[in-house]
């Protein structure tokens, strides 16, 4: 048997390659095992010429291989040269099938060739390199491929694309894009529909099929692959077709089974879970196996390369290695009182802030990279009422005062050390509900929304703490009236957090129930049955309550309350609350007053219904239409009154001219109901879908509530896919246009608005240089004093921007009625 390596690295992506290069530089005996015949298959599989970004830009790269943003080809060449120069011992075509043994004596089984012995193993296989394979006979023939680099490469071929997901459809559409290539393309799909693909892709495919440009075989499986031919099982029986090339895109699976078989445990059975690791990336369940890179939960290239470097240092016994992020943390903590070192700061915060108690030192480091530590003098405002903000604050030292009464800053509620505040904005995305000032010299850690959500998902203890405090605070904030936490403990003891699906009712008209509900996130609509038809009564945004009439009057429910979008509500039991009302007459008066106001609105609508039935029906159906369009989760939406819109597209032109020449709205597209048109334009959702999976965390909420994408965007397209309203596009800003007066006087350039594709292409060529495609969306003209340009530039007043609670208010009915 051959030598035993000190380190065997499985996977030659950025992480594995970097580890191998470090090992080679240190002269440690190592072997880099790569399944394919080239390094870094994931990057290799990017389409030709793709621009690869280097984020996070603040992070210092510490690796033996160089990496900078640039074209795929350039980066791959660089890495090939670097690994060669470092003297990395690579074994290509080494497909690992199993890992056995323990630290110091591992055996790695390969598909082909002798097993390999190693003392330590670095797993850097990523999550991409595992496509599902063709299982039928002939599936291993050379004309079967699992990727498509350049659709323009093939001409005059009969090509079968297997798989009706996005990848398959996009490949197939790429192959037929240029009719001049004269390919005969067939897409084979196992099912009758395309449930996993995006709707525009499916629509495009079906349109192409109807136009006769592509054949689509549904409910079909491949039965046999032969050189030049393919045989498929269709519902009508078996058919044999001419076929020069097969592109199989049947999905990929993270290689979890393989990793678990080696003894590495994952943090949960969840599909997206990662292995549990020590601060030195070692598996907690299987010492000697180190997991780095995407498989460890770090999808960015720079992270991966740094971890490759670090893991080799750890294995070779360098436990004093200063992390690559150390200078960043030093910079971050500079100027704070206390003269603590970074490690002392981490421990100080971890032990003093309750929600951080459960974090490991490694998690703490990463957490602090995203967060900010601030110190305040007594009386300093930390945030101000009605300021937008979604970050969470933890108090590490000192205490703060919450000014609960907007009219009297003297009335305050204290929050002490180790607790948190700002959680309402975190949960609901709404503006700050109160001003908070430091009561004494105070040190707080400000945790941005994404970091806070990550924290809550990783540390159950943090999640429970935040949830408990949130409910308590929300109750206090909604009902105000000088309530203290002690007053509401009994109410809270019986409270229940409920997730509500869109359209699901929490209260049904006529029911005998008397609980009170607080809308924590999402929004509700109130409907009443009038003359056999449900009539829209009002819209209840997050941070309000519903159900007080039945609770106070002990009468059946007078209206139905159902979720406009996916929402979270807190159910408060009626009896303890009624006792609270008895104890707190001020609260009772407040609620009775609000109840009277709501009742008046209901009465007004009912009265209108009798006199102007049509107007009420219209109001109700418009409201329902808007809710269906997702306005319920919007915070600011552009609407166009089609009775005023002359179709001049000045809104689009203004948008393009105030944003690098690209319009972020499509006036014509979108849905219409009764004169109200909802164009394809961002509605700045309360919980933006686009934010859910942004690798560089580039999507933020700005000072006016706008959701915007900052300059750290890497162009991955996740947000575009996540947005259910199709308002994000991937594009590169066009070159600068000549000034307007030159266009007006001499006809130079494309004139106002987004330049045509042809002009952009020509101008970009003349200008030279490469610019990547990035995600582009409405930023509500952030930073422009005049507000959104689309509205300012509308000549007829057709374009308006509204918030749902203002627009869905009864005021509309008064106007039309």
């Amino acid at each position: 048997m051959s030598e035993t390596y000190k380190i065997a690295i499985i996977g030659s992506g950025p992480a594995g390659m970097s580890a191998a290069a470090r090992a080679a530089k240190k002269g440690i005996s190592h072997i880099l095992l790569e399944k394919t015949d080239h390094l870094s298959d994931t990057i290799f599989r990017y389409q030709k010429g793709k621009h690869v970004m280097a984020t996070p830009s603040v992070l210092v790269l510490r690796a033996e291989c160089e990496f900078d943003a640039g074209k795929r080809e350039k980066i791959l060449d660089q890495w090939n040269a670097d690994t060669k120069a470092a003297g990395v011992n690579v074994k290509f075509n080494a497909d690992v099938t199993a890992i056995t043994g323990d630290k110091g004596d591992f055996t790695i089984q390969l598909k082909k060739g002798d097993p390999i012995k190693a003392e330590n193993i670095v797993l850097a296989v990523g999550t991409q390199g595992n496509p599902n394979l063709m299982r039928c006979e002939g599936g291993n023939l050379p004309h079967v491929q699992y990727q498509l680099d350049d659709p323009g490469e093939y001409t005059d071929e009969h090509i079968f694309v297997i798989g009706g997901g996005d990848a398959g459809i996009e490949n197939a559409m790429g192959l037929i894009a240029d009719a001049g290539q004269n390919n005969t393309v067939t897409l084979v799909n196992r099912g009758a529909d395309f449930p996993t693909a995006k709707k525009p892709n499916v629509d495009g495919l079906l349109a192409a099929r109807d136009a006769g440009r592509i054949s689509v075989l549904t409910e079909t499986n491949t039965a046999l692959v032969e050189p030049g031919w393919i045989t498929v099982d269709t519902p009508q029986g078996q058919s044999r077709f001419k076929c020069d090339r097969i592109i199989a895109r049947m999905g990929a699976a993270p290689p979890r089974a393989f990793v678990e078989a080696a003894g590495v445990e994952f943090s949960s059975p969840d599909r997206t879970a990662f292995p549990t690791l020590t601060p030195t990336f070692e598996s907690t369940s299987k010492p000697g196996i180190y997991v780095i890179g995407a498989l460890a939960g770090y999808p960015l290239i720079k992270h991966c390369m740094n971890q490759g470097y670090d893991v080799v240092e750890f294995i070779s016994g360098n436990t004093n290695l200063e992390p690559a992020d150390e200078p960043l943390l030093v910079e971050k903590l500079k100027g704070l009182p206390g003269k603590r070192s970074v490690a002392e700061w981490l421990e100080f915060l971890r032990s003093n802030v309750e929600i951080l108690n459960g974090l490991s030192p490694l998690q703490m480091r990463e957490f602090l990279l995203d967060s900010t530590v601030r110190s305040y003098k007594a009386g300093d405002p930390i945030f101000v009422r009605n300021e937008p903000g979604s970050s969470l604050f933890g108090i590490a030292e000192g205490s703060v005062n919450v000014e609960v009464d907007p009219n009297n800053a003297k009335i305050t509620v204290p929050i002490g050390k180790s607790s948190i505040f700002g959680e309402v904005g975190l949960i609901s995305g709404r503006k700050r509900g109160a001003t908070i000032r430091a009561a004494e010299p105070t040190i707080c850690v400000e945790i941005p929304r994404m970091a806070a959500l990550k924290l809550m998902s990783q540390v159950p203890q943090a999640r429970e703490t935040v949830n408990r405090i949130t409910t308590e605070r929300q109750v206090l904030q909604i009902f105000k009236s000088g309530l203290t936490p002690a007053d509401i403990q009994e109410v809270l003891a019986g409270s229940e957090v409920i997730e509500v699906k869109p359209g699901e009712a929490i209260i049904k008209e006529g029911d005998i129930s008397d609980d009170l509900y607080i809308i924590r996130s999402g929004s509700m609509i109130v409907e009443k049955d009038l003359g056999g038809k449900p009539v829209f009564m009002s819209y209840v945004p997050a941070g309000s309550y519903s159900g007080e009439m039945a609770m106070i009057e002990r009468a059946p429910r007078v209206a139905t309350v159902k979720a406009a979008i996916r929402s979270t509500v807190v159910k408060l039991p009626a009896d303890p609350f009624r006792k609270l009302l008895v104890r707190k007459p001020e609260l009772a008066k407040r609620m009775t007053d609000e109840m009277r106001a709501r009742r008046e609105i209901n009465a007004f609508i009912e009265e209108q219904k009798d006199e102007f039935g049509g107007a009420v029906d219209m109001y109700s159906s418009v409201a329902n239409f808007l809710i269906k369009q997702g306005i319920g989760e919007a915070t600011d939406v552009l609407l166009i009154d089609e009775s005023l819109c002359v179709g001049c597209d000045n809104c689009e032109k203004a948008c393009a001219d105030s944003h690098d020449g690209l319009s972020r709205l499509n006036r014509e597209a979108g849905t219409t109901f009764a004169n109200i048109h909802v164009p394809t334009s961002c509605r700045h959702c309360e919980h933006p879908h686009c934010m859910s999976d942004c690798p560089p965390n580039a999507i933020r909420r700005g000072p006016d509530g706008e959701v915007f994408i900052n300059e750290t965007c890497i162009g991955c397209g996740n947000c575009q896919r996540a947005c259910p309203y199709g308002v994000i596009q991937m594009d590169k800003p066009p070159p600068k246009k000549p000034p307007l007066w030159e266009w007006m006087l001499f006809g130079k350039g494309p004139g106002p608005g987004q330049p045509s594709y042809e002009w952009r292409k020509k101008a970009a060529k003349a200008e030279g240089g490469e610019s990547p495609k990035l995600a582009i969306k409405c930023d509500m003209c952030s930073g422009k004093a005049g507000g959104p340009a689309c509205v300012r530039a509308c000549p007829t007043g057709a374009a308006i921007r509204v918030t749902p609670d203002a627009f869905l208010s009864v005021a509309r009915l008064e106007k039309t009625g």
Partner: protein
Amino acid sequence: MTQVGGHTERVRQRTHEGFLRHKGFRWAQIATGLCVVATGVYFFVASRLAEPPSGGSWLGYLLGTASAGLIVWLACLGIRKRVITQGHYSLKAWVSAHVYLGLSLTVLATLHTGFQFGWNVHTLAYALMMLVIASGALGVWAYATLPQRLHGNRGETTRKQMLDALASLDAQMHEAAQPLDRNGAAIVRLSIEQTDLGGGFWKRLTGSYGDCANRRALQQLRALPSPGSAVQAEALTKIEGLMTQKADALALARRQMGITALLEAWLFVHIPATFALLAALIAHIVSVFAYW
């Protein structure tokens, strides 16, 4: 939920009002006031003079300067509309003022003439101004009435979708025509290759597409003798269906273009007449001062 404090929101237009009703007819009121005052002063002055005040009197100069200033300012709408600056402005307010102050010129400029007309450059400027205002009034009518028709016609179909639908029908026709003989193929080619969607402005405005190639192709197709084979007969039936669909799609797109053309038609008078007016205005002013 309406407390505001601590944070100042940027100015945002949430009011749902058209340009004619802008701010409760603010500019209509201002324009009317201006006209009433000007008329009152004019007749007050006129009652004390032997002859009515002409353009050369102090009142004439005042009215003339005001009118000329207004004309230049009104013409600036074309620039305001295209320069998207960052500050707070509302194009709707500009349009509202443009409409009402523009209409007030009919009174101000008429008073300026002192009701003296002749075959000269001065009256030419006046006539051009009235032409601009008349075409503008047509525009107001178009903007007030046509949007409903425009959007009613298209429903939720976008321009691109209309074009895509036509392209898709053509592709399907091409595919279906494969079994046809030479005559049949020529008819399909006529529809695919010769159909002209829009045409010139006049054609779009009037919607006269009597010579539409698709329409002719459909007529010729129906007049074809029964084909020899069943395959061809099937193909012909399919193509007839496709051509009828195409006729509908064409009609929708052309109606859309027709309404758009109607919305723009007045501008073809309004804009050139404005430039002519500016030229005549300069001539008018220069000649007045040159021959003083």
